[in-house]
């Protein structure tokens, strides 16, 4: 089991001149600490126009800062929006290759297509087309990275032969992932030999079935890249505290705040009926179970909040259903003070992480005194 951290960069109002900078600086401080503590990955979303919820519209720049301020932690574009009106595919290939070089070959490339009308409508992209353009782009990216010259004549874009530069530092190219929220997307990922980048909180039982199907199908996949990335990367909240009740209370506040903010988004399906979005994406799992506005936001199962013992049990459950990695959201709307976020990371690294290190890795760490 590997552990990572995951950023939406939510910025609560009031937006004074320091508000966004403060959140970004805090995130970078968390990333530096996570790198020192042995976390394996840091991921950043790409969102546009999502007031307060996510001010992370240029994650490649944030991730470049992460890369130059750290030594080992891998940097994950989670996800780059594969919609031509938002990111031209050539620019995706160029930017990701540059980030891979800057990070010394530490890039992971998540792909997806956005799930909100707020974003798609803002860029004039039709929700009808995003699945098709995502499919075209994920098939083109590995070729853009590896072929000396690339040309293409498709529906999403066309281009004459050109050398797309630079090329990624990792050979043949960085690992590729797909954002998994809507049921069925895991099939799309498996059939293309792409890693599972889960953006669904909790729901262990349902996830177990979907993960099993993913594992089954990826064995017979036709990979879009030069290799198959058969990894399952789940997402979770993290608040670890010596006192279980304190950990649970703060963790629930974090989860509830994130869920409440996510539920405010205008999903693609809500605004624009289309078979391309058969589900409301991330939102239903975070909305209340019933129809009462007075109900609390749903608390998913398998959350990594509480004391170390409780979190160890939660991680074991995720491990048992098939997850290879867990990425943690550490804060939302800055409801957890920075010192508490850092303390939670330290405690997790001290008490929880060692329980899931591979024997050889743990032995190596012990012999070197790490």
């Amino acid at each position, binding site marked *: 089991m590997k552990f990572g951290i995951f950023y939406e960069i939510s910025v*609560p*109002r009031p937006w004074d001149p320091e508000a966004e900078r403060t959140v970004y600086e805090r995130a970078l401080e968390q990333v530096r600490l996570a790198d020192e503590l042995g976390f394996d990955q840091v991921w950043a979303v790409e969102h546009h*126009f*999502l*007031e*307060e919820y996510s001010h992370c519209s240029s994650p490649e720049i944030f991730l470049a800062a992460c890369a130059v301020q750290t030594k080992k932690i891998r940097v994950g574009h989670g996800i780059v929006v594969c919609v031509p009106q938002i990111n031209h595919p050539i620019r995706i290939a160029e930017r990701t290759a540059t980030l891979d070089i800057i990070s010394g070959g530490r890039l992971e490339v998540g792909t997806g297509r956005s799930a909100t*009308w*707020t974003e798609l*409508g*803002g860029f004039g992209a039709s929700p009808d087309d995003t699945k098709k353009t995502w499919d075209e782009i994920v098939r083109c990216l590995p070729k853009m990275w590896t072929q000396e010259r690339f040309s293409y004549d498709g529906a999403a874009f066309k281009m004459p032969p050109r050398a797309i530069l630079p090329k990624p530092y990792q050979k043949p190219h960085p690992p590729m992932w797909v954002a998994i929220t809507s049921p069925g997307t895991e099939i799309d990922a498996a059939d293309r030999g792409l890693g599972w980048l889960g953006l669904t909180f909790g729901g262990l039982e349902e996830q177990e079935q979907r993960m099993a199907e993913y594992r089954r199908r990826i064995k017979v996949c036709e990979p879009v890249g030069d290799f198959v990335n058969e990894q399952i990367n789940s997402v979770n909240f993290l608040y670890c505290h010596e006192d279980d009740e304190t950990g649970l209370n703060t963790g629930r506040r974090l989860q509830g705040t994130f*869920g*409440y*903010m996510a*539920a*405010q*988004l*205008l999903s693609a*399906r*809500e*605004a*624009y*009926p*289309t*078979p391309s*979005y*058969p589900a*409301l994406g991330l939102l239903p799992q*975070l*909305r*209340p179970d019933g*129809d*009462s*506005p*007075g*109900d*609390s*936001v749903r608390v998913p199962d398998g959350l990594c909040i509480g004391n170390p013992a409780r979190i160890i049990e939660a991680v074991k459950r995720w491990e048992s259903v098939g997850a290879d990695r867990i990425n943690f959201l550490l804060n939302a*709307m800055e409801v957890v003070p920075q010192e508490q976020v850092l303390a939670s990371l330290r405690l997790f690294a001290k008490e929880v992480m060692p329980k899931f290190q591979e024997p050889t890795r743990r032995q190596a760490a012990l012999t070197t005194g790490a």
Partner: protein
Amino acid sequence: MPFLGTLDTTPRLKDAPQLDNYDTEAWEIAGVEHLSVTFEIDDAAMTSALPPALHPTIPPVAYFSVTSYPESPVGAFKLAQVRVGCRAAALPRGFLLRAYSDSPAACEALGRRWGYDCRPADVQLRRYHDRIVGSVTLDGREVLQGSLLDPNPISGSSIFYVSNVNLARSPDDGKGVLVQVDPAYTFHRAERGSPELTAFDRPAWAADGIDPVWPVTATFVKCDTGFPQIRYVMDASQAARIGTRKLR
């Protein structure tokens, strides 16, 4: 936290319907035809159009709809509505600004039972070869015309209609209360097309500041739906996550 509405509901309450009680029986109606036209609206009204119980959507949107009910306990009627998209806590809803019906009996019943601020007018829902048009004419003046252009069939499973939140006077004390009207839909046919709004008289809809600025979509469905028993009401003056009362 997200914005909350700033609408002072006091002036609206003078004209708001008085609920008889919270125990009205449900109306289940088959063969309903419903046209919905969605536009993004100018963000100047994103909070001023909503009471303090509700959050605006981002971007703010308005739903313009005309529905034909072929039967009901008060007979057949058509209902036109203008609603502002919102969130009641974490749930998607549409706040009713005003409604019109071609049936005075329906106006009265919908007001007394479910809190619709509904007034008599000529309401039409017509289908042409290349469009479906809903319109409202009040005192000889067209106050709404919304259309779905170039209808194309889609699956009803793609449709997501938000439930109503209607401002009414409480049967208990006459104070302002928001009534959640959350019908279920069984779709028999669904179509989608481009939205068009060629007439929208803001004063007629109590829609000051509502300026449709960007077309989103239009849908037309044939379905079974209706008006269910009221399950939740909200205090108009405080956030719905704390001001909601469960009735059943």
